């Protein structure tokens, strides 16, 4: 370790000016990014909220004081108090327990949309940008057409075709959100397509698939990750909107948007039934937005 001027500490190893291996350089960059991230208070708050959501979803059965489906008509519409912190709904179900269990549905929807739509967009965008020519023209025309559609209305139409349900909502949101990712991936691909290292890989006989998967895709991913994180709040809001309209998760599932819809008719007298799940949606979306802003500052300093 004598060659390392920063001494033997882990932080010193991570921030070394001359990393000895690729892994050290990579970890060092992650560490520096993390340092920048932790200095951003709002971003840390966002991270805390998102981690809280994950914990909530994982531990919901143990955290929830009541069974989220257990109806008790003798205890319906009780205002928030000691026995029921957030009150009970029209069927006497504990709202806190339902919100806790609903976090699983929210996370489920977000997770499924974020593994499908960005990957489809990445595939289309990188192929389009890498090959250029008529492939690019055709794929980008389709992307532009898809971008020109109103997303929520189209999602509504898709759900109507597939039938209401949480899976249809996920498919509808994924189908309407891939074009933005394709655009980003294509733009990134165009900037690196003619780089020397791509040419070198090609001269060594690497196939197009190998170049795209091994060299282009990794370089596109950081801007895509930022965009996906920023979009997560939008996904949550759209899913809740579909649930509110009765097209997403169906009762008695404790989906937050559907819970707001169920509390709608009582909103003037028993305000808590519709208000509480809305606050949950707000906090979680805020968390994803703050996290996304923070990630953008770290991973994509150009756009600041």
């Amino acid at each position, binding site marked *: 370790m004598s060659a390392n001027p920063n001494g033997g500490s882990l932080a010193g190893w991570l921030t070394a000016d001359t990393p000895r291996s690729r892994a050290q350089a990579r970890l060092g960059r992650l560490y520096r990014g993390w340092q920048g991230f932790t200095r951003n208070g709002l971003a840390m708050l966002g991270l805390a909220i998102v981690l809280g959501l994950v914990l909530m979803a994982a531990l919901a059965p143990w955290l929830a004081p009541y069974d989220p489906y257990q109806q008790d008509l003798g205890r319906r519409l009780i205002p928030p108090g000691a026995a029921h912190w957030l009150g009970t709904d029209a069927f006497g179900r504990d709202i806190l327990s339902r919100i806790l269990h609903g976090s699983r549905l929210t996370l489920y929807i977000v997770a499924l949309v974020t593994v499908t739509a960005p990957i489809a967009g990445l595939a289309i965008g990188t192929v389009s940008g890498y090959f250029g020519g008529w492939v690019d023209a055709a794929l980008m025309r389709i992307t532009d057409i898809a971008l020109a559609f109103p*997303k929520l209305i189209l999602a509504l139409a898709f759900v109507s075709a597939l039938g209401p349900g949480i899976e249809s909502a996920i498919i509808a949101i994924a189908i309407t959100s891939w074009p933005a990712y394709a655009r980003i991936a294509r733009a990134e691909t165009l900037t690196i397509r003619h780089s020397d290292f791509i040419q070198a890989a090609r001269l060594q006989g690497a196939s197009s698939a190998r170049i795209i998967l091994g060299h282009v895709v990794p370089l596109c991913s950081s801007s895509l990750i930022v965009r996906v994180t920023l979009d997560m709040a939008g996904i949550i*809001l759209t899913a809740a909107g579909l649930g509110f309209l009765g097209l997403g998760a169906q009762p008695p599932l404790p989906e937050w948007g559907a819970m707001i819809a169920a509390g709608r008719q009582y*909103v003037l007298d028993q305000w808590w039934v519709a208000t509480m799940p809305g606050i949950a949606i707000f906090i979680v979306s805020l968390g994803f937005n703050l996290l996304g802003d923070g990630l953008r500052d770290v991973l994509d300093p150009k756009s600041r």
Partner: protein
Amino acid sequence: MRRLLLRAIGLLVSVALTVLGLLLVTFLIGRVVPIDPVLAVLGDRAMPDVYERVRIEMGLDQPLWWQFAVYVGDVLRGDLGQSVLTSRPVLEDILRVFPATLELATAAVILGVALGIPAGVMAAVHQGRWPDHLIRVLGLIGHSVPVFWLGLVGLLVFYARLDLAPGPGRLDVFYEGLVEPVTGVVTVDALLAGETEIFWNALHHLMLPAAILGYYSVAYIARMTRSFMLDQLRQEYITTARVKGLSEARVVWRHALGNIAVPLTTVVALSYATLLEGSVLTETVFAWPGLGLYITSSLLSADMNAVLGGTLVVGGVFIGLNLLSDLLYRILDPRAK
């Protein structure tokens, strides 16, 4: 001249392709629905030979591409099919409900321009101080709050608790049907009929939903104004103007704002498009009888013609506004030529 013509043709082709793409999507959605279109007409106790005859009459035995061509032809002639729910042509229904949506979205966009542009300018001028932070917070909340929930809370606070706003709907019940619909926009119709009392009632009803919906466009327009404005204030001509001794107000509101008028116009056009879409959820909350409420209530009763017709109209308006903002940019900004 020839270049201009070529560009116009290029634009026309791209719009035509987009519209065709929209038609293809609604056509395909209509084909994958689990509802059998023949049974939807006949009811599910139809005899097999009647079923077969109707199927052929409806053109469902033809190849898919031919069915699509027929569909495009129908839509271009303004035939969106019959609504199962109202048993009237869908186009007629949509023309009847569209003015309500237009009224709501227009009121929201007026709010967005009237509040968003001054707020954005203030934020840029006082960068890093409280007006700037306020805009950021407003935008962040706008990105995190579900619009339908905000509507419900608005009703709870301003209608039920404070009694400042009227309840859902476009008019108080006893005013309804008193004004002859001319444009379909109640506020305008009331003025045309000289009924000021009804006009104020309609305006009163419009306030809360327009404020809720307008909030989102205020946040968006303010954010865009801020970033355009910051770009301008860094330019040298601003320094020159200041050196010449112009007042700060004149520099900001005349010189800088004047130069961002064109991009702002396109932002406003785009936010109009988003508002039309956002009105779907807002209308449901406020029982506002517009296109959004029409689409969602048709959805719940599986009235596919109505849903797809509504989707087409919103999509068409969306594409039209996009095109308009593009054109405005090219016409108004001499640099874009």
